[in-house]
């Protein structure tokens, strides 16, 4: 009886594994289709979407070469701007919001509480609510370049970061900071050499969430940046389809592939942190 139920359980697990494997393959198919079509001549992408790119369909690397200057804008430039904006914004957000969060939870004055509750409130405000006025304000203040847009990201994205940092700082025992203060550490030094190292796990979670948001963000940079000069990858890809009557689908797929590869590499290398960060952000947000 017992061995019977055990083998039944083993059989169930095998069936489950098989079902999950099939779902897994279906999950990867869209990305594989992009890979296939990036090597296909334009005319075949629509008619033979799921065929292997062989024979007359094979385009070699011509799609990738064409994609580089596609849409009258060099692709490497949009990659560069995406990297600049993502790195600068994330760094700025991590530095400024962790400082503010520490201050908020240690000082706890009325002003701090007002800022904190405004931040929490900003988390439920959809971007469409402020997009028009925000893009006008950013324009007036000349925040429309990749080097200044991080300030806009800091302002609009501060909510979640402050919320997560405050939650964590509250759990840090005060005694360590007191000891530092008694030893004659200034608050600035206390923060940077005592508090900041302890914030590392939350830094990683917040950083991951911000990177994922900013790298993929389309509407904010589209409305804020000077589009003729600066395009990020999502803006560039949207432009390919948007403004040209006949789109070279093969070249578009080549660019999509090129834009997915770094994301997948990033994911596979920091998978553990990414999944942890996402879970932390979801539970709190």
């Amino acid at each position, binding site marked *: 009886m017992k061995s019977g139920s055990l083998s039944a359980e083993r059989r169930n697990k095998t069936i489950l594994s098989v079902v999950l494997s099939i779902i897994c393959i279906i*999950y990867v198919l869209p990305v594989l289709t992009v890979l296939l*079509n990036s090597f296909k001549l334009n005319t075949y992408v629509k008619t033979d979407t799921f065929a292997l790119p062989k024979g007359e369909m094979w385009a070699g690397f011509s799609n990738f070469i064409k994609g580089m200057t596609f849409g009258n804008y060099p692709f490497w430039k949009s990659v560069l701007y995406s990297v600049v904006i993502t790195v600068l914004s994330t760094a700025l957000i991590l530095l*400024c919001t962790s400082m503010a969060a520490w201050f908020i939870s240690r000082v706890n004055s009325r002003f701090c509480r007002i800022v904190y509750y405004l931040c929490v409130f900003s988390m439920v*405000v959809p971007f469409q609510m402020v997009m028009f006025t925000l893009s006008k304000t950013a324009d007036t203040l000349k925040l429309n370049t990749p080097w200044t847009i991080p300030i*806009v990201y800091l302002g609009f994205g501060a*909510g979640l970061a402050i919320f997560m940092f405050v939650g964590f700082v509250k759990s840090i025992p005060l005694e360590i900071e007191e000891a530092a203060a008694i030893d004659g550490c200034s608050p600035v030094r206390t923060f940077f050499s005592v508090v900041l190292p302890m914030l590392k796990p939350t830094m990683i979670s917040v950083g991951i969430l911000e990177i994922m948001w900013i790298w993929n963000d389309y509407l904010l940079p589209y409305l804020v940046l000077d589009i003729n000069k600066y395009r990020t990858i999502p803006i560039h890809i*949207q432009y390919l389809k948007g403004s040209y009557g006949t789109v070279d689908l093969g070249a578009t797929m080549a660019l999509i592939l090129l834009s997915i590869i770094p994301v997948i590499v990033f994911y596979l290398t920091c998978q553990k942190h990414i999944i942890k960060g996402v879970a932390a952000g979801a539970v709190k947000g």
Partner: protein
Amino acid sequence: MKKRHSSVNAVSRTISKWGWLFMGPVVVAFVIGFVWPFVQGIYLSLCKFRLISDAQFIGLGNYTKAFSDPGFLHAFWYTALFAVVSLVIINVLAFAVAYALTQGIKGSNLFRTVFFMPNLIGGIVLGYIWSMIFDGILSRYGTSILMETKYGFWGLIILMCWQQIGYMMIIYIAGLQAVPEDMIEAARIDGASKSQTLFKVTIPNVMPSITICTFLSLTNGFKLFDQNLALTAGQPFIIQPGGTAVKTTEMLALNIYNTFYGQNAGSQGYAQAKAVIFFVLVAGLGLAQLAFTRKKEVQQ
């Protein structure tokens, strides 16, 4: 206890002198990036303007106009339907996958990695990947995803499932792993069947995760923009008797965007009124979530 309190004050007093340094950058950016645009947005929704500098106060006119716009009302019902349908499908499937992956089968980590992957791809890129796939299938039947509303609707549902199941799965896995092992063991010893254990022990214990995921997928559904723009951009259109077109697969966020930046100049105040209505809707969902989770916590 009292001593601790006074030392808190001592620490906070020395820190508070540095407020300009610690709070300054965030407060300045927050005012530029959120507070001022938000306040100005509320004010402008009550105005008629072409340029912000010559805005004219007109009261609630923009709101009545927004509520009588067939395109906006269609977008509202379409979005609500989409949000509810995607909510049910995504959560049921995500829970099923999470449950399967916590049964200790081989390769669970690999499956988890693959299922989560689409989450990192941005909405615009996702939209183009899937529009290629759907058109690849539908072109064999001489049609396209842009030809029929139902194709656009279900296409977007499939896309969102592909993207979001992995995300919700992660939250459910965390919830399932927190269910006390001995509780399940006790149920089994008492002779409960597998499905009884699932419904009577496991699911009540993961209710917090279910609440989080339900609200997350609901608000995600309401706020959806990039995927909607990239997949169908509102097509197909139906021309109304008055000459205005209703974009049948256009969701709320895209409708607001098109009212702001579409062909019809001078309608910014009216678009801003739509944005305020949208904000009230989404914020209402957020507050409902907060109230709901608070109530649950009290009960436990």
